[in-house]
């Protein structure tokens, strides 16, 4: 920023503050314009946007789960494994109990979340370590239980006689396609927004992230609350797993590898400080879309996958450097 009189007047601290609030929105607009300029109609086509609308929901739901946990000042890096576990149990549920058995997938996510919460609260082990351990354990459990094989969801047109691990559920596959997947995601997003912004629970997420000790002093049971938070986030991961099952058409032991990092990145791109106390559902949605669009745009522009990962990392650092309001964060560590 040059030290001209004009810029000094335009960039008053209050305006910088306001600008900072809009960084996620500005970032996504810039990213779209950039890829449009680079790739033209190949990027700005109905087909490509349908693809983006299909790609984003799973990441978005996972980012919601992460947002809840991060707002309280904790972190959950077990969600990638939890996604694979939940999708697998959802598919197993359908094998055992028919279509309604899919709900088992949601509960499986809730169970993993609750175990996380119990370990963190009762054994007082930091969330990073606990969920790291769970990331490893749950992935191993999926591989053990699945014996390394996948369960496929089929539409019935191909009768795979030899493949016993398949469920015929054309309705689920159609749920995984645009527009159904997008509508489901929009409904979940709206409910999450209401939950996060308007309920006592949502408000308490921020309060715990702000000053846990005070809440304990006034007699709020923070321990049980945290278990509930991780369980709620887990249910959201379970839901994301079911959506992923619909989209991918299979529950594989490798599902969701490294996706926990994408979820954290989406939350961070949404301007949420990972230290807790603040957060926004709308900006997290923007963050999830930004991440998907950048990945998609780079692929269309012909950037090799490894380089596009580098670009994503740089984007993440740039976005946080600009949007993080350090006056809201006591210590940067």
């Amino acid at each position, binding site marked *: 920023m040059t030290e001209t009189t004009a810029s000094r007047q335009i960039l008053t601290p209050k305006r910088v503050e306001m600008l900072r609030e809009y960084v996620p929105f500005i970032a996504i607009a810039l990213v779209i314009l950039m890829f449009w300029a680079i790739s033209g109609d190949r990027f700005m086509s109905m087909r490509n946007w349908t693809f983006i609308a299909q790609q984003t929901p799973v990441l978005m739901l996972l980012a919601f789960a992460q947002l809840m946990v991060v707002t309280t000042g904790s972190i959950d890096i077990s969600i990638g494994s939890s996604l694979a576990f939940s999708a697998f149990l959802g598919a197993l549920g359908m094998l055992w109990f028919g279509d309604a058995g899919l709900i088992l997938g949601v509960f499986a996510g809730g169970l993993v979340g609750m175990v996380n919460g119990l370990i963190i609260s009762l054994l007082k082990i930091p969330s990073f370590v606990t969920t790291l351990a769970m990331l490893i354990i749950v992935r191993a459990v999926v591989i053990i239980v699945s014996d390394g094989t996948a369960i496929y969801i089929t539409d019935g047109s191909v009768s795979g006689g030899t493949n016993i691990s398949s469920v015929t559920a054309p309705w689920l596959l159609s749920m995984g396609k645009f527009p159904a997947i997008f509508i489901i995601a929009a409904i979940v997003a709206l409910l999450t927004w209401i939950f996060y912004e308007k309920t*006592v629970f949502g*408000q308490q997420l921020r*309060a715990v992230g702000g000053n846990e000790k*005070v*809440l304990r*002093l006034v007699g709020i049971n923070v321990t049980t609350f945290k278990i509930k938070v991780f369980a709620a986030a887990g249910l959201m991961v379970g839901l994301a797993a079911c959506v992923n099952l619909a989209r991918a058409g299979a529950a594989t032991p490798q599902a969701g590898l490294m996706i926990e990092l994408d979820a954290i990145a989406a939350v961070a791109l949404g301007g949420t400080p990972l230290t807790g*106390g603040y957060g926004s559902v709308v900006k997290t949605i923007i963050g999830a879309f930004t991440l998907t669009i950048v990945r998609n745009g780079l692929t269309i522009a012909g950037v090799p996958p490894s380089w596009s990962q580098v670009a994503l990392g740089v984007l993440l650092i740039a976005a946080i450097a600009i949007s993080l309001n350090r006056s809201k964060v006591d210590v940067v560590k």
Partner: protein
Amino acid sequence: MNDQAVQPLLSVENVSKSFGGVQALRDGTFELHRGEVLAIVGSNGAGKSTLIKVVAGAHVPDGGRIVINGKEVPRAEHSVSHMQECGIEVVYQDLALVPNMTAPYNLFLGRIPRKLGIFVDERKMREKTREVLAQLNVTTVQDLSQPISSMSGGQQQSIAIGRAIAWGSDIVILDEPTAALGPNETAEVERLVEDVRERHGTSFILISHNLDQVRRLADRIVVTHHGVTSREFRRDEITSDRLVKAITLGE
């Protein structure tokens, strides 16, 4: 003051408390009357913190009695929430508020009103907050949607005190209320205490290292020394000199 005729609001008798092998409080004894400001002073480690934490319900005493309005608090029910029900609130010096939340949220901390069971009743919170701020004559807090971390220390302490009195408590314990504040803000908080006492008849227990402040605000001063409430003075009979001697030497 005719102490004999009036039953004290709070009476603490021979209360003791130890942690592990360390006896933090050997004999805590004092009485508090309605509308009175009582200061507890003493050097670090003299037991005053332990004493007020027992009164606030945060510590269960090993021995002694606590009588509120003529009714003894049973040891089994000794807790923060029970003391709150009995009308005792504490304003802790730096742990009192959630910095990233709004003034209404902090005022309603632990008592958030609900709509339909799960939703926050924000209108009720805002209205009540305006009411309490008006009662306290605090005019400087205008924007109720801002996190309180954006407010001055004095404003924050006003909200902390507002929370203590908003729910009709009879006794407010102020733990070093101005230790972190500048002179102007200290004056603001002191005015608030005087005001609340006059208008609501609230009693205060003041813990402070600031002896000038103690002499400005308190009607009576209790000195703790080595875990014993050793001396008691009236405001009119105390000089700084005697107070310092009592604090350091226990005489």
